[in-house]
């Protein structure tokens, strides 16, 4: 696989990061080294193996659909400056 500037820029865009040229230059050999190391996992035969998304067996948990205490609107908004008329203020969606 080709790890180059274009690939890093593409992945960064997907991850909502804007990298400077200096960062890309520094990251390129580092990411190459890490991804090459990951290739080693291909040696393991996992044809009949199921993935473990958790290390221990975990069952789905249900609860009754009852209303419990939660933060008030005032509390929820208390952590930001960007707010207006009881709402969070965010960037334009369209």
């Amino acid at each position, binding site marked *: 696989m080709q790890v180059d500037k274009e690939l890093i820029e593409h992945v960064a865009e997907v991850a909502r990061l804007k990298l400077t040229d200096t*960062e890309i230059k520094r990251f390129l050999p580092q990411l190459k080294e890490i991804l090459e*190391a990951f290739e080693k996992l*291909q*040696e393991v035969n996992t044809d009949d193996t199921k993935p473990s998304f958790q290390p221990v067996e975990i069952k789905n948990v249900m609860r009754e659909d009852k209303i419990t205490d939660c933060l008030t609107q005032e509390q929820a908004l208390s*952590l930001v400056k960007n707010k207006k008329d009881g709402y969070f203020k965010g*960037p334009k969606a369209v």
Partner: protein
Amino acid sequence: MNAKEIIKQAKELDKEYLFFNKIVEDPKVYGEGTLSGTAISVKDCVVVKGVESRAGSKILENYIPLFDATVIEKIKAEGGMIIGKTAQDAFGFGSFATNVGIGMKVPLNPFDKERSCGGSSGGSAGITQKATFNHISIAESTGGSIVCPASFCGVVGICPTYGRVSRYGLMDYANSLDKIGAMAKTIEEIALIMRIIAGHDPRDSTSLDKPVPNYSESIKKPIKGMKIGMIKEAFGEGLDKEVKDNVKQAIKRLESQGAKVEEVSLPLTSKYALECYYLIAMAEASTNLAKYCGMRYGAEEKVEGSFNEYFSKVRSQYFNAESKRRIIIGTFARMAGYRDAYYLKAMKVRTKIIEEYKKVFKKFDALICPTMPVIAPKFTEIEKLTPMQNYMMDILTVGPNLAGLPHITIPSGTKDKMPIGTMLIGDHLAEDKLMQIGAKLKAN
């Protein structure tokens, strides 16, 4: 010591060693119980109501949680006094507590200020070693972040079974790997705190609904006849000779008390756990960090431009270099076209590694090896490592973390005055056995 004197000492130590991200000015005691008179420091990534909690990152600057993590609620109810938030690699991304958030402090080793405390729970380990007041630290491990710094700072550290302790109120690094645990000077204190923080929590769907033993009783039990597996590969290449000799002496101490120690091989784990761990950890981290976007809490900027422009601006400005590296690799490993070859493959290799451990635990009560292959390195040595060489320092700790197995580190000696730790690994939910054996392991 009263609260005022405790805070005074914490501040003096912080000035010299930079252990804290935040010290509580006027700490309160809420309940009364087995932790009355004990000061509790908390890794920055575990939220404490009303105390700035940043997970060691700049992007969470000024975030003052409106609620307590479940472990904090339990500690407060037992009379524990929260004294502050300890320094760490941002989001836990590191083995030396050097990858701190932009503008934040790197904690210094209590035995040599030119050396690292270890990471990522570095501040927790440092203050645990230096505090002269009654103290326990709440730490967190994803791939070794409790036992590594505990070993480098000469204290006891326990990382419990995945799900044993509720993660409600933990700022996630990697959901399938994160565990909240503890550090203390003695195993008696570890037994005490684990009894309090372990147990089921309806607010964490991954927390295990299993009874919690009285660990303070477990540590008193003799170890005669217990079977301990010495991990063959952990004593091979790359291990410092004095660390090796020291851990072998620790093994002799266990044998002299009647434990049967035999060599055991973990070929798959030794060869693939590191890569498997890092791939999963980064993939999960990249999704967890998606929520930090300059809205609702944490760092914010003047709102302008489109969604993508605003989010990218905030994230690029406030994440440190290691966070960016892990986001890029983790995002890549989950992208269409690569997901099966990377992310899913690692999840399958993890299954094989868990099976390898499970087979071994049919025969043994615990496994033993050094916690870290070396003593705490100097900052000048750490600077020279590439990120991959840096990750390789975790070779002995990633296995149990990947498999969700409990593990404990006990100070077992020194090299050039720097502490060495011996690690015990147990089967799922076998924390009691680890403490039982661990209590017999400490050097006299």
